[in-house]
């Protein structure tokens, strides 16, 4: 926001309240009420407003208080945000960043635990990225703001409290690149967002058991970084996808299809995909824990793959 005066933020309670997860804390005091805009409660309308502002030269960052509420903005995102650059013959560009906390939290109920990446992945014209650490959150956010394409940045409700040392100098990450978290030889584990931590936890157990998993945080959900993924598969010949989306129509499903299409010859075993069940996320803590993929399941899956 300091570098470019055209960057502005809009959403519910983002101003003086600082955002429901304090992401925009302090910005309203620094940049004023107009650049950090508190909107009335109408997601379709303020997303549409952001798109209109983007078409006339601003670079808005639209915040959904919870990703699940952006379902109300689906019309604007699909029909306008994704399409207008194309249908106008390239005349109007829409450099918006749509972001918000999503994923399964701690007992937030079904409506506040949506995984919107599965619903949005089909929209042409948008890019989707998911951040998982403070380092890549900053880098991806900057890249998303500077990109001239509409980008949806998926944050996770449970990852806001992470602390990490990040470089002082400015850095911008590539929106289409995956991150190599842990190089290995035996199996490629593809994951993103919160599941990265479950995978790393499982990786510790796996290392103790003698396995050497290669963990890749795919980061870019649309388009997939098939270059990094492909190189990894050519090395290990086994793939496990761990995601938080539901089994049907999730990111894992698309990724499975993409890998099979491109790297089928390099696979020694069928692709395994661990995902949530096709049920609304229950509130009860015990049930909720079951919907999300847990480290023991990851360990068991790797063992099965490597047999």
């Amino acid at each position, binding site marked *: 926001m300091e570098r470019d005066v055209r960057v502005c933020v809009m959403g519910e*309670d983002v101003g003086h309240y600082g955002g429901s997860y304090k992401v925009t804390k302090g910005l309203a005091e620094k940049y004023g009420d107009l650049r950090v805009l*508190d909107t009335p409660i109408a997601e379709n309308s303020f997303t549409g407003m952001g798109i209109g502002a983007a078409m006339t030269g601003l670079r808005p960052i639209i915040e959904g208080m919870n990703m699940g509420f952006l379902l109300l903005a689906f019309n604007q995102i699909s029909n306008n945000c994704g399409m207008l650059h194309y249908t106008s013959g390239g005349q109007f560009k829409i450099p918006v960043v749509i972001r918000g906390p999503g994923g399964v939290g701690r007992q937030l109920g079904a409506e506040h635990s949506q995984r919107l990446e599965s619903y949005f992945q089909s929209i042409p014209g948008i890019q989707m990225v998911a951040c998982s650490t403070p380092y890549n959150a900053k880098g991806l956010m900057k890249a998303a703001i500077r990109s001239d394409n509409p980008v949806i940045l998926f944050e996770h409700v449970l990852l806001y409290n992470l602390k990490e040392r990040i470089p002082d100098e400015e850095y911008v990450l590539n929106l289409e690149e995956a991150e190599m978290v842990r190089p290995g030889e035996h199996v490629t584990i593809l994951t993103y967002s919160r599941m990265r931590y479950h995978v790393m936890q499982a990786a510790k157990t796996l290392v103790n058991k003698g396995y050497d998993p290669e963990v890749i945080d795919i980061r870019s959900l649309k388009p997939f970084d098939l270059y990094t993924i492909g190189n990894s598969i050519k090395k290990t010949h086994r793939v496990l996808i761990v995601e938080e989306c539901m*089994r049907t129509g999730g990111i894992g499903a698309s990724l499975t299809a993409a890998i099979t299409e491109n790297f089928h010859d390099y696979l020694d075993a069928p692709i395994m995909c661990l995902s949530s069940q096709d049920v*609304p996320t*229950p509130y*009860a803590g*015990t*049930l909720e824990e*079951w919907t999300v993929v847990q480290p023991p399941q990851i360990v068991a899956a790797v063992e099965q793959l490597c047999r």
Partner: protein
Amino acid sequence: MPSATASSPYEVKATCLSLQCMVLSFQYLSSFSYCHHLSLSLSLLYSSLSLSHTGRSLTFNNMALWLTSTRRCGGNLMKKIISSHPLPLFPNYQTTFASSSSSPTHSINGKKTSSFQYSFLGTRHYKSMHAAGEQILTQEDDNDDSTFGKTKNMDLPGGKIAYTTDMKFLPGSSEERVKCYRVLDEDGYPISSNLLEYMSKELALRVYSGMVTLNTMDKFFYEAQRQGRLSFYLTSFGEEAINLASAAALSFDDIVLAQYREPGVLLWRGFTMQEFANQCFGNNIGHGKGRQMPIHYGSKKLNYITISSPLATQLPQAVGMAYSLKMDKKDACVVAFFGDGTTSEGDFHAALNFAAVMDAPVVFICRNNGWAISTQVTEQFRSDGVVVKGQAYGIPSIRVDGNDALAVYNVVRSARETAINEQRPILIEAMTYRVSHHSTSDDSTKYRSKDVIEYWKTVHSPITRLRNWVERKGWWSDKEESELRAQTMKQVKHAIDEAEKEEMPLLRDMFTDVYDDLPSNLMEQETLVRETIQRHPKDFPKDMPL
């Protein structure tokens, strides 16, 4: 006024039009009474002449509008002039006027005299009339039932609309805000002398006890959340009157769709303290089977739809339910509650519009408590609250003092009757203040001062207000108050303790009720989960009943 663009193709067109006009005028003249045909003939004449002589172009549409508009003022003017003044302007018409049946054809003689400058259109001719010393009349003079005034409305697809030459924008808001209906003042003294506005002793005490129970329940559940026994809670402090008084005004057949700050309605209808606690703890025997967050109550038996977190989703659904009630011709209506913030959502507007168009018996009750988390109403909308929005959709609306239980009761009861008898929606805006934080995830002292909250909590407390009234009536006393509070406290504590002890929902309940029967993919996924637990029992919660 016809636009003046003179270019050659138009002149040709103009001539053709003028000819057509002349033909028309002949036809017209022959079929009307003299009053009509005089004004019409004059206007037609003017148009045809102006076309041919001044070369101005007129589209047929313009002409049609112009004709109908002139008839009114033309008719007026002519009538007045004829009746009250000698006619220096139209010497050749005097004779035609006197004889009603004479053919007017000789009046159309193509002669352009100065008389035609006095066109009977709009304001331009007023200047010339002034100059001629004529009496100038305004549109509003046509009060009587004369034939000259028949064409004052334009018949449009949406209905008749009257014209005006006064260009006036409707103001965004009126100078005076819509008044708020109330029966008792802050101290519980009646300000109305109409005895019909008060409740019976039995009802008043029931409402009062309900309000106290709700308040107590909220206090203890909130504390339970703070102690870590509950994960989340949302209180209704300051809004107890809206909760209970509206519930009292409804019948048990009326379907209620709430937002989340209306558990009092359920309480009134018989939801027990234990049931509230079970849902909040998400245990095995709660109605929601542990699937929803706390305060997302629901009971089909009590006609209270399960609460859904996203705002305004219940409003179009309310209209749908009213539609089905209408089809079934039931003596019941639908009541939808929502807050001020929700009125910004698209669903709110769609729902009100639909309800009006479909004549759906819905009573929309807005709890305008001034805040939507940290967003004040001034940042939410610029209209005079929510009550004026009803009018925009053709819905009768009223503003009521939400902290006055008696006023709320009267308004809801009346609204319900109208909604059912006349089969139409009603909008009620209940003005109140959100004494509570938005929820346990919010600390509202961050955006508002403690003094303001304290002020509303004490000075405008709906409970205190009603209590003062019932005590002055001799129906309540301190002894009964302390008894009620002690009893409720015990009930709530007991319910919380019991609910906490209950078992958590079974694993099977994660997969049931997604569909009516378990499909194969879900059965497969359930088997997978059970296998995983079996293989790694240490890695999963121990108190998980399978």
